[in-house]
């Protein structure tokens, strides 16, 4: 059962940091060598085990349900309970990751600004009007797009006011 807890630890570390694929594979092969299991079958077992937490996330299962699933799959009660315990501990992180992966349309990623004064133009020798220029970085699919937009001062104050209203609205829903 010590083997099992070590393996579980490796699995959950991967689930909470899904980008660390290299590290996960290294840890798996270390585990295989230490316990004198061959890597191939181990990988297959791990693949099946990983299906359970992913399915659990999709269906919002409670730790008891995860434990019941594992027992139905033939795992011993002790091991199933241990896994369910680990699941309970890691659930918030995993849920947050899943929510973070949710589709976002034209996500605003960054914003830069500058403001200045228009001094003169070809039509008017002296102007003296203040403008605000915003650069919005938008994620469209997998690419970034820069959008440049100019606002007058009244538009800026109106924009700020509207965004504060949005914040109040978002806060009342969370």
């Amino acid at each position: 059962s010590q083997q099992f807890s070590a393996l579980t630890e490796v699995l959950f570390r991967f689930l909470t940091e899904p980008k660390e694929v290299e590290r996960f594979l290294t840890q798996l092969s270390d585990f295989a060598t230490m316990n004198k299991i061959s890597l191939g079958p181990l990988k297959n077992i791990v693949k099946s085990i990983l299906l359970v937490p992913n399915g659990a996330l999709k269906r919002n299962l409670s730790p008891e349900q995860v434990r019941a699933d594992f027992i139905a799959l033939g795992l011993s009660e002790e091991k199933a309970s241990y896994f369910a315990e680990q699941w309970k501990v890691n659930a918030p992180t995993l849920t947050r990751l899943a929510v973070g992966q949710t589709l976002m349309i034209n996500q605003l990623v960054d914003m830069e600004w500058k403001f200045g004064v228009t001094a003169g133009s070809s039509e008017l020798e002296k102007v003296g009007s203040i403008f605000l220029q915003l650069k919005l970085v938008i994620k469209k699919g997998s690419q970034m797009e820069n959008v440049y937009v100019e606002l007058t001062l009244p538009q800026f104050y109106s924009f700020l006011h509207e965004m504060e209203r949005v914040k109040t609205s978002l806060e009342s829903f969370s």
Partner: protein
Amino acid sequence: QLVSALHNLTRHIVYRGLTRAEDILSLFPENFHQNLKNLLTKIILENISAWRNEAQASQISLPRLLDMDWRVDIKTSSDSISRMAVPTCLLQLKIQEDVALCGDSPVVSALTLELSKETLDTLLEGLGRIRDQLSAVANK
């Protein structure tokens, strides 16, 4: 030739920002018809601020914000998680491309963005800093 001359006169007046009758009157040549000169000056003075505003509005510029709309949605499920309640904001900006380039047929595009709560907080922080900078400049 007459129209061209009038056009040049009004352009010059708008460019220089002349607003006093004396300044405009002094532009006419010595032997210009007195009544005509006064009539022209009067008409020009009436229109001068409208012309200045129009000139300013049709300056070259980056695309300009025309209008802005928003709505707040609650995301309830997705392919990676079946139950959640995440509020998100959809912001639509109506942007008009450079007025000077478009002339009489302005090109307006609508850009819809999605902002998470975190992004909105960061955005508000940035906008707040802009507001502080603006008041610092205004108070100088």
